């Protein structure tokens, strides 16, 4: 029976079911938005207001009252950036920039790191401060970085601040990327706001491919492997054999990639359909032959942000060899902390920092030695394998709730590894292993494959697109209602 009360409640924020791309509500949201956007496509100001309204409403449905922080930080940064631009006095200019940095980082630090600092303080100084009841506003890590890059670019004279507030609000709140990125640069985005709504056949096909493949990665592969395998092994590795733990790490490598890149792909795809181009965020990162290359392929919008707004301001490689390595380490440690408020993330960033430094030295020392053998298949495959396993090793710290669990995981893999249980393991986890294999196969597809697919897709009539989409929805239904895979004991 139709339930009016439930119907009206759908329009309000529900903490138990925040809005994401996979909610039924999003289908209606997008259909209504798309229709209105199309109608107003030639009226640029109206189109912008519409976009801002829907973006903020999306954010409200995703995180409730925290939407005020997006608006507040848009107002503050809009005025500060304009003040920085107009200010001719260098000293005052700098103070305005510092105000912006303190405001933006202050919000982020308060919401994300207060309890971490309290816990650390209690641990080191034996104090007894109670943790505060702070909820983390969704997307704050992303829009804080966007605000910062904007005011810093204005300060550096690389960017003329927007004159209309709505332009800035739309840049910050643009709903496809608000919750989980990518981190968009104003210089890429803002020039696109006041352009005619024009997209090519190729854009349409590419957008469709990105949306459907992104949803497939996030909702089918990642969610299934997480719920049916990775989560419970990572919760208590001591209950499982080394073989299960090792596969849980491989599983998590798939999960984190599919989760993150899947969401980015959907965001980029939707943006494409609305006439906005957002740069690619993941380029098959597990195909990297070394760790430096990995960071050029993994979460590119973050790694370039860290490079431009941390590493280079620290001095980059301009202040001597030792400082270069210190800067690299600092950047990666802070980059780790950005992912979450715990020592595990700092350790994860630290390990990557060490590896990047090691690779820098290695490259310098061995360049001549390996000049002749560098491009053989064997060396390439070995490099990919070593890089992948190092990245996987670091994921242990990223995923584990604390160092004890990370230690247990490593202990089980290295000290309790028993191949004789493989048969039972395989039998129980067949669906999970199948999806993992599929994910790795999809990942190994060459980078230009998407272009080939979209080249073929764009010739199809619309009815095929609708058919493919509905089939995907049905597939999602199958996975959502599938029997869970239960853990089993392989040894007694």
């Amino acid at each position, binding site marked *: 029976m*139709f339930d009016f009360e439930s119907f009206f409640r759908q329009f309000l924020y529900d903490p138990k079911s925040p809005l994401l791309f996979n909610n039924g509500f999003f289908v209606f949201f997008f259909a209504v938005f798309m229709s209105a956007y*199309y109608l107003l496509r030639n009226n640029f100001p109206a189109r912008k207001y519409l976009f801002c309204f829907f973006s903020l409403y999306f954010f409200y449905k995703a995180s409730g009252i925290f939407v005020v922080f997006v608006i507040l930080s848009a107002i503050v940064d809009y005025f500060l950036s304009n003040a920085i631009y107009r200010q001719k006095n260098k000293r005052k200019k700098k103070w305005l920039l510092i105000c912006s940095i303190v405001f933006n980082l202050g919000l982020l630090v308060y919401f994300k790191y207060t309890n971490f600092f309290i816990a650390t303080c209690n641990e080191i100084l034996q104090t007894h401060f109670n943790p505060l009841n702070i909820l983390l506003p969704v997307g704050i890590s992303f829009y804080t970085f966007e605000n910062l890059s904007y005011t810093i670019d204005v300060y550096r004279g690389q960017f003329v601040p927007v004159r209309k507030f709505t332009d800035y609000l739309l840049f910050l709140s643009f709903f496809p990327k608000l919750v989980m990125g990518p981190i968009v640069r104003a210089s890429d985005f803002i020039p696109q706001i006041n352009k005619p709504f024009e997209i*090519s056949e190729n*854009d349409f096909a590419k957008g469709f491919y990105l949306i459907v493949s992104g949803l497939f990665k996030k909702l089918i592969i990642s969610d299934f492997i997480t719920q049916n395998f990775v989560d419970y092994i990572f919760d208590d590795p001591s209950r499982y054999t080394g073989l299960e733990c090792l596969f849980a790490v491989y599983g998590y490598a798939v999960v984190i990639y599919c989760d993150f890149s899947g969401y980015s792909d959907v965001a980029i795809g939707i943006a494409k359909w609305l006439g906005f181009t957002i740069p690619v965020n993941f380029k098959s990162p597990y195909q990297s032959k070394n760790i430096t290359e990995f960071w050029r392929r993994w979460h590119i919008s973050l790694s370039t942000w860290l490079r431009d707004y941390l590493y280079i301001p620290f001095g980059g490689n301009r202040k001597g060899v030792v400082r270069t390595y210190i800067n690299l380490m600092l950047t990666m440690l802070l980059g780790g902390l950005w992912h979450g408020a715990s020592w595990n993330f700092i350790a994860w960033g630290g390990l990557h920092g060490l590896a990047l430094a090691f690779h820098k030295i290695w490259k310098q020392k061995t360049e001549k030695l390996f000049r002749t053998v560098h491009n053989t298949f064997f060396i390439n495959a070995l490099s990919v394998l070593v890089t992948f396993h190092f990245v996987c090793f670091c994921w242990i710290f990223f995923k584990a709730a604390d160092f004890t669990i990370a230690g247990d995981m490593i202990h089980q893999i290295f000290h309790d590894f028993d191949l004789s249980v493989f048969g039972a393991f395989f039998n129980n986890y067949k669906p999970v292993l199948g999806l993992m294999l599929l994910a790795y196969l999809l990942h190994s597809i060459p980078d230009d494959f998407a272009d080939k697919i979209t080249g073929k897709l764009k010739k199809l009539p619309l009815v095929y697109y609708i058919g493919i989409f509905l089939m995907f929805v049905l597939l999602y239904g*199958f996975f959502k209602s599938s029997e869970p895979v239960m853990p089993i*004991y392989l040894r007694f």
Partner: protein
Amino acid sequence: MNANRRVLLFVVYATIIYLIASVVAAALDWRWMPARRINLISDITQHYRVEESTENDSLSNSDTTSLLPIAIPLKDKVSNFNLYHKAHFITNFNVDTNSVALERFIKKIYELKNGIKTKIRIAYFGDSMIEGDLLTQTLRKLLQQMFGGYGVGFVPITSQVAQFRTTVTDNYSGGWQEENFKTDGVKDHLYLSGHVFHGDGDWVQMKDQTVKDTTAILLKNLLCGYVSHPVNIMVNNSSLAIHPDKIFNCIPLDKSKSTSIKLSVADPALPVYGISFESESGIVLDNYSFRGITGIEFSRIDSSFLSAINAENPYDLIIFQYGVNLLFRPYDKKFNWYANALMPVIKKIKTCFPESDFLLVSTADRAFRYGGQYQSAIGIDSLVKVQALLAYESGSSFYNQFETMGGTNSIVEWAAKNPSWANKDYVHPNFRGAEILGQYFFQAILTDYEKYVRNKK
């Protein structure tokens, strides 16, 4: 050509078709699960209930030829079966809830508390819920603090979680041959732990991490089976000749302030069970965990062996906590067959340990994913009831761990806490959750104890 119209048409057509399909499916009350999970209007038309999904009931065990009908039996006027619902409470189903449930055990701990030097043994049997001394380490610590005694109790030679058990440090050589409940054709008797070990030039070194008092004298006893000839073993690098000629033997190895011991066994004929760390008097609590079992496995241990154990190490309280491994299929609701299978086991144990009180502990909560959402297993109420019935019919006491931890969906809440109290397998409370359960259990014993003290006055 501008394809923006194509985007619009795609979005509008796809939404309309999807919406029509959803309305039709809802109107026809189509119960096909994949379609229900993606129905666009499900949030405003229907609320999925777990109870509806009983289509897989046929999967549940069809062996319902029960000797124990699941109706509330009224044995006599002084007992009330429904007391099994009560959380934080140990019941022997006596309507007088001021009477003591664990009569003999509570009397003994009262005497211990009042200066009578006596050793009180508790055997805590369980599955993976108590693996690694979880729950029992808290209960042991609290009981020993309150009533006296120290020592970690029984420790098997090795276990799957030996490296993670914090109450004992356990190092051992790699050659120990191990047989257990899951091994076919075991020749020797399996101990209460469900294991037996044979060493051929193998050693084990254990350190009891629970004893903090450096002046305390700690007994270290070897628990082993029968061997036809005298055997030389090495204890802390000194040779010791022993002749375990009974089917079960408890051989003192060391009595000193040291909390650690090293044992080497060269003769594979000797069935070794483990080492017990205990004080001269006070509480000794043995953890007998075996993952994945339901308790029925104890039918493999014969009465004469159980009686021999009782002769050497008589127990005052036997706690029996299983059940979660019966809930391995989401839609199982009938567990009468379990009552039939377990009743003889309980009777056998009660007969072989005649001086002991017997306390049956219900399963804790466990959840499955029903329609994309984790909820308590739909069979959990009927399982707890069957377990209570087993206690009731066998004249044992009962402790409802499921209700004590919070009842329906508590495991989901525990897993969602920050920091969490349970793992995301929605089966196992983690060390934080197990500590809470241990504290609850201790409080329930204390409540029983206080009733005894009150009644005595």
